[in-house]
């Protein structure tokens, strides 16, 4: 068995709820309880008591209407008495929580950490209120007064990408089509759709060149993963040896200027933090040729063009080639790297605190060969997750792989 010192941390269990537009039958704590219970049962535990600590992931007190939710969620999942910390990193919240749990295991502070995240980003508030809350993610003093939709800064970035590299709106519309199609095969997805590039281009304009179908979904949902050392799984997780063992092979995080217009002109159409986070994660994972070594990637497709830009910044294709890559199928099912087999934020949906964790659930399930059907990436051994806050102010990349 691979030791935790070699692998960082083993993934003992994963679980998630469906992502939906609105759960009228569940509060955020109910959803987190469902996901956490599923992860503990997946690890073969009959009680949460062997778990050393919890990491709670959620972005917004405004959406959840509960301060000190970390302790409430910890109590809900059965970890009362154990240490818990709440982690927040915008869109990267869930992935940052996993990274935080990893550091606790690497440091020896804990032998097992349950990471649980959830959010009620769906229709618990009306659209106007949701947009108002999300507008607070921009800089309240310098940006929020001039734009209320994140489509705007994403549109500015992709506009410069189009000018510099000849990228077209039809190329990133292909991504909007791909991810919604992939979601059709995911029973937990918020909304899979069979649409065309023409459908994307004729949907309602948000901020030129972006249209409604270039944008992702806001969902209710929760997800959880249980990370542990080799010793701990031997002692407590009877299911671990029954299936392909998965570990976190590497993790990286970096920041960028939160305000788009503060960034250098050279890097304006690129996610600098994503490049740094990926470089760190790949180095730890021993990856020097990402497109050849990575089988699948869950990429942060908040907007279709953001996935296109991420292809480049994650090193999956050369800088400036994202548009060609989006259109030639190399990141589709059956391609070189399958990107967003879950459906991504556009199809599976996004419940912010849960999103990076749900990505990990997909990657781990793929590597274990448990997904099945047309969505299963054949022979998947290495997969990664990519999320960012704002328009790339904070990036987290986690790499998972089969060990043994």
């Amino acid at each position, binding site marked *: 068995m691979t030791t935790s010192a070699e692998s960082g941390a083993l993934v003992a269990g994963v679980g998630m709820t469906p992502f939906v537009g609105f759960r009228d039958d569940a509060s955020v704590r109910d959803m987190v309880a469902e996901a956490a219970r599923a992860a503990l049962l997946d690890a073969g535990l009959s009680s949460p008591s062997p778990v050393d600590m919890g990491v709670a992931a959620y972005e917004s007190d405004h959406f959840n209407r509960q301060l000190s939710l970390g302790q409430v969620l910890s109590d809900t999942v059965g970890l009362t008495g154990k240490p818990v910390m709440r982690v927040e990193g915008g869109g990267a919240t869930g992935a940052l929580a996993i990274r935080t749990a990893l550091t606790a295991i690497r440091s020896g502070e804990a032998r097992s950490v349950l990471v649980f995240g959830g959010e009620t980003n769906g229709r618990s508030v009306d659209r106007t209120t949701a947009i108002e809350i999300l507008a607070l993610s921009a800089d309240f003093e310098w940006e929020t007064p001039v734009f209320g939709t994140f489509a705007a800064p994403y549109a*500015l970035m992709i*506009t410069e990408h189009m*000018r510099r590299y000849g990228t077209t709106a039809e190329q990133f519309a292909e991504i909007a089509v791909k991810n919604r199609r992939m979601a059709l095969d995911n029973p937990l997805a918020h909304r899979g759709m069979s649409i065309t590039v023409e459908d994307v281009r004729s949907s309602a304009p948000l901020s030129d060149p972006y249209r409604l179908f270039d944008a992702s979904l806001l969902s209710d949902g929760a997800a959880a993963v249980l990370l542990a050392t080799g010793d701990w799984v031997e002692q407590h997780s009877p299911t671990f040896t029954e299936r392909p063992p998965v570990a976190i092979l590497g993790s990286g995080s970096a920041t960028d200027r939160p305000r788009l*217009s503060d960034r250098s002109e050279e890097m304006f*159409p690129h996610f600098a933090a994503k490049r740094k986070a990926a470089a760190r994660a790949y180095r730890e994972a021993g990856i020097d040729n990402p497109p050849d070594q990575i089988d699948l990637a869950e990429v942060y497709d908040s907007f279709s063009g953001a996935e296109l830009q991420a292809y480049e910044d994650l090193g999956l294709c050369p800088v400036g080639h994202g548009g060609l890559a989006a259109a030639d199928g190399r990141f589709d099912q059956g391609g070189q790297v399958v990107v967003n087999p879950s459906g991504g934020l556009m199809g599976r949906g996004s419940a912010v605190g849960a999103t990076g964790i749900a990505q990990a659930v997909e990657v781990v399930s793929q590597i274990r060969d448990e997904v099945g059907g047309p969505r299963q990436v054949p022979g998947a051994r290495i997969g990664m997750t990519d999320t960012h806050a704002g328009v790339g102010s904070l990036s987290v990349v986690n790499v998972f792989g089969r060990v043994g």
Partner: protein
Amino acid sequence: MRVTGTERNVGPDGRPVYLLGVEMAQRYRHAVGSSSPFYLGLEQGVLRATRCTGCGASWFPPRRFCEEDLTETDWYDLPGTGTVVAATRVHSPPPFGGIDPPYVLASIRLDGVRGGITHRVIGDETPEHGAAVTVEFIDGAPAHPLLAFAFAIEGEAP
């Protein structure tokens, strides 16, 4: 806070579902803090930035302390001109209102300082990369102090 009503439904597996309507409104006194001289400058029709009294590095948005050497900064006036990096037409209003959509938004690199601003461009034309713009102050009470100004396109892109 107040309860606006309740709803009942039947969930999956026949479990009962009960929902509460809740209304909350918040009012804040938001301290603009170290950016206050910028906001006050807008009332005099000027854009201001800060410059490090030690190394001379300039900052926009203004910073009280220099990021390079931690020295306190001083305020100075900007010429109010700049260059467009990218622009977009936005189809929804900003959160404080004050602009009817669609409107043109641009990332503008400001002359005389390291840094830039994302702000509104006057008119219907979406400027190209490299277009020169100049600040214009707008008459009347803005919906938000930052909307007291916008940028006008000066020349064609090179």
